[in-house]
């Protein structure tokens, strides 16, 4: 099994918590039909609750939106200073392989310029433990720029993450990440 860590862990915990709460609420509501009451008696409280819920949920969404503004993976959102020393690597995807270097350094920011010779592909980076750590689409006629820094050396896997035809599931290759020389 792939270890559950990083963002995946956060997402999973959030989803399990939300699911548990939702199931709990449904269970409670379904049980309540054993002791029926008039609609007028419950609806007033219900509308009040709905109001609080709307405020709570709306605030949550605004907060989430604001928080994500700072963490989107796009080039325009990277601080200018962080971009400068990047090492430029071109990735060309085609049915059913990637042409790109097979060795890259750890600890150095890399500017991946990703495109495709034929159809849409994906460019997904899996850590040596098998955790998906970053991805971007490879599209014909366009170049997607992704900044990424390998945090540790090891054998990574590059995997196509967009259905691209009959050989799609074979479209993966390894990438050796070697220790940084000066170490950042």
């Amino acid at each position, binding site marked *: 099994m792939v270890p559950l860590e990083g963002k995946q862990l956060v997402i999973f915990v959030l989803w399990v918590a939300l699911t548990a709460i939702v199931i709990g609420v449904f269970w409670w509501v379904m049980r309540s039909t054993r002791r029926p009451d008039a609609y007028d008696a419950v609806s007033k409280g219900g509308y009040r609750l709905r109001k609080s819920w709307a405020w709570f949920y709306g605030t949550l969404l605004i907060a989430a939106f604001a928080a994500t503004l700072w963490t989107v993976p796009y080039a325009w959102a990277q601080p200018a200073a962080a971009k400068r020393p990047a090492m430029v690597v071109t990735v060309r995807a085609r049915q059913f392989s990637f042409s790109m270097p097979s060795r890259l350094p750890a600890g150095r920011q890399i500017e991946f310029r990703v*495109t495709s010779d034929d159809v849409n592909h994906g460019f997904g980076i899996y850590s040596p433990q098998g955790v998906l750590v970053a991805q971007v689409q490879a599209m*014909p*006629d*366009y*170049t997607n720029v992704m900044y990424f820094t390998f945090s540790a050396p090891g054998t990574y896997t590059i995997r196509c993450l967009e259905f691209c035809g009959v050989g799609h599931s074979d479209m993966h290759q390894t990438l050796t990440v070697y220790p940084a020389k000066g170490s950042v």
Partner: protein
Amino acid sequence: MMTRRNVPWLGLLVVAMAADILVPAALGIGDPPLGLHHLEHAFLLFGGGVLGIAYVRRSPREWGDPLWLFATILLGAAGLVLMVPELYSRVDAYPVLHTLLHVGFAVVGYFGGYAAERYSPRSGIAWLLMVVMTGALTATGFGAPPPGV
């Protein structure tokens, strides 16, 4: 819609459409950018539609045949086929053909609005919805080549 109050507006619409049909070709004004050209054609579909709807509304009608709905959809597709840019590039070189194409848009638009409104009172709005959407989406790049890597 065909109340006296609306007549000036309809008149204005006809003038605008006439200008759109005649001026670009007659004056030999060069091809507008593709997106704008699509919008221009969608405007003719829209304007024609408004006139078609207004015509039906002149006299109150009953609920029409379901085939009018079918006609509405087919005319929508026909309008779109006329918007294939391949056609533009062939036609635009000849002012007469270009003008005819513009007339074609107005006519398809007219019958589209007419058909939609004939189905049921006020249902002509469906045609306008379709045309607005078609204009908006084609303008973003229907038949446009990729900008290049």
